[in-house]
Each structure stands twice: as structure tokens, then as C-alpha cells.
């Protein structure tokens, strides 16, 4: 509308923009803080007031991916000269590198933990969303005896704070050998996300008119085909929204990961704090680990942004 706006409208419009700016600022500051710290030299990480202008360097990332311990004496010149650039960078920071048979530098566990996080979050998201979608479809389209009770039961699995069951779960997992396994965490996160996924997807599928499937049914398709060819494409928005939420939950989960895993299947969240180092805490390494950890969620959300935007306003707009 290109009409003339009243003074009041202009005022409210500006106030709204100002409000959004303030909210955005508040939300972006921690992200800026982490990102800048990830590229700071160690001595600038904890200055008061915070250092805003500095020459960025990648030594925090090098430290993140290597194993190191505090150096007592300066490293000898021959070793320093023979070392590759990233090792020299670590030595410059006043640290020595643990020796191993393979070489001077040993890789830290971060890469493996990151891959674990990806495997576990993606798999459990896929399982939770696909099972949730099928379940929601069943509840939405068929007469289920005691439907309301079942839906409530599904929701009720989320009513207890998960940490409450952590200890019994830990004991059971140890008993059946799921402790410190990828499968173990995948099952846990899938179960945890499933109720959410069912409820969210039911809302979306309820909004898809049955006539779409019925048209496919009379046109010679089976219900299964109708589901895949008609319902699934129509539910894409809901699936994207549900997937993002499930992914974020599984990706960020800390408590269970800390308790249920220690090495092989450990995810990034419990690993990052363990890199704080001995002696004086090295916040740049933590920041580097956190910065990398933020990226997948950001990318995932960015890729699905169009679906998400539609998903957020779903049901709010009526034709």
C-alpha cells in the first residue's frame, strides 16, 4: 500500500524497527563475543575492557585440534625449527606438544567428537521426523481408538525433566551395552524428540485437506503412494520446521551426552569444556570449539529458511 501513512503509523513503525534492532543486538552480542574470542590471541581474550580491535589469528583452532600441555622450559631451537607452522604456532603460545610415535603433534579428539555429533544428530533427527510424520499421519487420517489418550501419553513422555531419568538410563545402558555407543545416543535422542515431532507434524498434516489424498486414491493410487506423492510434498514445510527443532535439540544436548558417553561416541558439547586446559584457562580454545559448533545449526537453518518462514506462519494465514 503506497498510501499516505498517518503520523501515528510512522511512529509505531519506527518503534517496531527500534525494538527489533535492540532484540537483534542483544541476541547477536554473545555470538560476536564467541566468534571474536575464537580468533584472538590468548592474552587478549580476558582483557578488561574487552578488546574489540585486534589482529585475528588461527592459533585457537590449531590448539583446539591438537593435544597440548603446559611448557616448563622454552622448547629447544632445533625442535622449533624442524616443526611445521602450526606446531611453531603452539610453541609461540608458550606450550609444548605431547610427543607420540607418529610425530610431534597428536591430534585432539575434537574432530572425532564433531563427527560424532553430526552422525548422532542427523540420524536421530531423520528417525524422529520420519517416525513422527508417519505416526502423525495415522492419528490424523484414521480413527484411532482412544486417540486423545494416546496423544496425551505421547506428550507425557516429555513432562519429566530428562535428567531425572539419567541415572536409571545410565545403569540400563551399561547393562545392555549401549553405553558410549552411537546407537545408544541415537535411540535416546530419537525417543526424546519423537513426542515433539508427532505433535508438531499432526498439526501440519491436519491442515492438509483429505481431498488431496482422496483424489489420488480414486485416480488409481494406493494409500502409500498417495502419502508419498501428495501428503509428503505438502507437508514439507512442517517437516522442515520439525527437523530444525529436532536437530537443534539433539545437537545441543549436554547432560545425557556427558553421562552416557566418555570417548568413542562422545559428542562435542561435553568435549568442549574439557579443553579449557590446565593452569590458567584458555578461553580462546573454548571459543574456537564453540564457534565451529555453531556452524552446522546455522547452515541447516539457513538452507531451510524458506520452509521455516512458511512454517512459522502456518495456520495464521487463511485464504
Amino acid at each position, binding site marked *: 500500500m503506497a498510501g499516505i501513512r498517518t503520523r501515528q503509523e510512522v511512529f509505531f513503525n519506527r518503534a517496531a524497527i527500534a525494538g527489533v534492532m535492540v532484540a537483534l543486538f542483544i541476541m547477536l552480542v554473545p555470538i560476536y563475543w564467541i566468534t571474536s574470542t575464537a580468533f584472538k590471541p590468548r592474552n587478549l581474550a580476558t582483557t578488561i575492557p574487552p578488546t574489540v580491535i585486534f589482529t585475528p589469528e588461527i592459533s585457537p583452532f590449531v590448539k583446539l585440534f591438537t593435544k597440548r600441555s603446559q611448557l616448563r622450559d622454552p622448547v629447544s631451537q632445533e625442535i622449533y625449527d624442524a616443526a611445521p607452522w602450526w606446531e611453531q604456532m603452539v610453541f609461540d603460545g608458550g606450550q609444548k606438544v605431547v610427543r607420540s610415535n607418529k610425530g610431534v603433534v597428536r591430534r585432539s579428539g575434537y574432530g572425532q567428537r564433531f563427527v560424532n555429533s553430526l552422525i548422532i544428530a542427523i540420524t536421530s533427527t531423520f528417525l524422529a521426523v520420519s517416525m513422527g510424520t508417519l505416526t502423525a499421519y495415522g492419528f490424523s487420517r484414521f480413527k484411532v481408538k482412544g486417540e486423545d489418550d494416546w496423544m496425551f501419553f505421547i506428550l507425557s513422555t516429555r513432562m519429566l525433566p530428562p535428567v531425572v531419568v539419567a541415572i536409571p538410563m545410565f545403569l540400563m545402558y551399561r547393562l545392555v551395552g549401549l553405553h558410549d555407543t552411537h546407537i545408544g545416543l541415537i535411540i535416546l535422542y530419537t525417543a526424546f524428540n519423537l513426542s515433539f515431532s508427532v505433535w508438531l507434524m499432526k498439526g501440519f498434516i491436519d491442515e492438509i*485437506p483429505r481431498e*488431496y489424498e*482422496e*483424489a489420488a*486414491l*480414486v485416480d*488409481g*493410487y*494406493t494409500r502409500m503412494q498417495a502419502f508419498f506423492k501428495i501428503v509428503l510434498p505438502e507437508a514439507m514445510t512442517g517437516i522442515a520446521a520439525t527437523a530444525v527443532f529436532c536437530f537443534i535439540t539433539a545437537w545441543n544436548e549436554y547432560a545425557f551426552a556427558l553421562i552416557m558417553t566418555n570417548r568413542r561416541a562422545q559428542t562435542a558439547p561435553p568435549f568442549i569444556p574439557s579443553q579449557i586446559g590446565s593452569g590458567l584457562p584458555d578461553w580462546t580454545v573454548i571459543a574456537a570449539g564453540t564457534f565451529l559448533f555453531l556452524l552446522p545449526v546455522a547452515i541447516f537453518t539457513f538452507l531451510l529458511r524458506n520452509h521455516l518462514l512458511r512454517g512459522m506462519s502456518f495456520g495464521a494465514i487463511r485464504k
Partner: protein
Amino acid sequence: MAQIELKNVQKFFGPVQVIKDMNLTINDGEFVVMLGQSGCGKTTTLRAIAGLETVTSGEIFIDGVAVHEKKAADRDIAFVFQSFSLYPHMNVYENIAFPLRAVGMSNAERDKAVKEVAEILQITALLDRRPSALAGGDMQRVAIGRALVRRPKALLMDEPIGALDAKLREEMRSEIKRLHISRGSTSVYVTHDQIEAMSLADRIVIMHDGLLQQIGAPDEVYLKPANLFVAEFVGSPVMNVADVVLETSGGQTRVRLGRGDAGFHFPAGLTNHLRETGAGIALGIRPEAVSLQHDAKDGYIPVETTNIEPLGSHDIVDIRLGDISLRARTESGFVSGEGQQVWVKIDPAQAHFFDRSSGLALRGQS
């Protein structure tokens, strides 16, 4: 193309009976319109034929083959929904091609079939569009195209043009008729609009409360309504219905309306078959069979006008006759206002008599 037969079909939703003992045969190539008020079970009947709804009891045959146990996909019937139900994530071409993808068919054949249907429906220019970018009439054309492309045994349409505005409805009505004549497909069409029903149907099936009321050609249900419901449902303006008392003397019958003394003379031949059943007899007379005069004439009764509805081509005049009210159709401007005295007569040949208790038409041998 096929014949469809319903035998003793009943449908319950929980305790509610929506279809009551329906028997109906739809002939090959016939265009049958199911007409009834909303909620009378038309959609449910249509969905039962298509296989989208199971029947509680009874049988459905298509070409003599029992199909009521078969899945919708196996009945080879097409359905046009009231809401059009075009798939939003496919363009028009894909929407029309979709039923063909269910059966194995070469790409070239499929393409040819889609283009051919698009040609007939004049939507060739729209093939690349998304359904959301179509106007209402075009959406309906696409929906019909999707139904026809497969050359199904029968075409079922559930109020397919009910969502369009009046002008488009008229246009689509004649288009559907044209299409039916050129394709000759067995069609069942559901509507609550009697003008649609009258203009499209070979035969009209009138339903009320899940019960079949009358099956017949449009002029048949109009001229010979089987019962009071049909009489009052079909025709606009609505047929006048009044309780009457008959007094026969000599070769003449006096038909008295309401509690007044005034009566119309009918030839005895037209009323001989009427018997008092206790509950009384109702007279049905369409407004066009009620004639008005400005002056007293033989057989006419003086009455007063109470309301005039000028409709352009003609007027509908309400008159008060004793304690009852009748509506008459006159040429426009015939009566200038309310409260005028005019003389009224009804045409005995166009009068219908009904049994008040059963509602059934009472008809002579003629």
C-alpha cells in the same frame, strides 16, 4: 462408460443414518443429478460410489460387477471435488498427468492425452501455471480435465461449480453439458441448486434426509412431483400448498381452500380419485397456475393483494384468500400495489393433490 447400480444401500455414521435404503440405477452414458438440501446425504452417496466411504449394508455394481468391497483405486471412476483439490505442488500439466502416472503409460502417450484434454477444456495456455495462479473457473476446468484424462468408467462431480460466482457458474454449466454430450460419459452430479439440476440432468434424483424422494426427467419432477417435499423443493418461486376441503355435487367439485367459504370449481373427473384419508388433502398449485384478473369473472374469487415482488420479466403477487396466502405469477406491472382488490382463479389442470399424512401425491388414472 458404464452403468452404475445401487441396491439397498445404507450408511451409518455412528448412530446417525445418512443413507436410507437407496436403490438407484444410472444408465450408461446418462447424466444424473442428485438434488437435495445440504446435509441430506448427497456427498456421502457419491463418495460411497467412488469408494471413499464404505457402505454399512447394500451393494454397488458398476457394469454388473460388485464393487462395494473394492478399493477406490480399483473402481476406475473419477471424482471432481467441491474444493477442486488440485495439488498445489504440481503445475497444471502435472496435475492432469497425475492420474495417468498411476498406470503404466509411455511418456508420449501421456503427453498426447494431457494436451488433448487441455485442448478440449481450452486450458492449453495454462499448462505451466501453478493452481494457486488460476482463476476459479480455470481451476474447475483443470479439475475436470484431471478427471477426464484417464477416460474413466464414470465421472462423479460433487457440487463442482458451487464455489464459483453466478456468471461463471452459468458459463461452466453449459460447458459441462457440452463436454458430457461430446464425451458421453456416465456422469453423476451433485448439487443443491435446482436450476443446475434442471439444466444439466437427463434424470434428477431428489433426496431428502437420506431418503430417495423421486427419480425422473427434469420436466417430470416439475410437472408430476411424487410427494409434497418434491413439490415444494422443485420450482422457484415455491409451489403454493394449502389444505383443502372438497365438496362434490353433480358433475362439479368445489375445492375450498383454508377455512374460508370461497372455493374453486373443478371438473369432477379431476377429483374423483381423491378420498378423504382423515389427515386431509393438500392442494399444490404453482404460482404460474394462479391467474389474476382486475374484474369479476365467472369462477374467479375476489381477493386482496398483500405484497408485490417485481422481478423484471414478471411479478410475483401475494394474495390473501381467507386465512391462507397464495402467490401468483403475473406479467410485470399487472398489479400496481398492495391492498388492491383482484379476482383469482386456479387452473384445475395444473393442480396437484397430496395426502397430508403421507405427503404422497394423489393422482388419477390419467
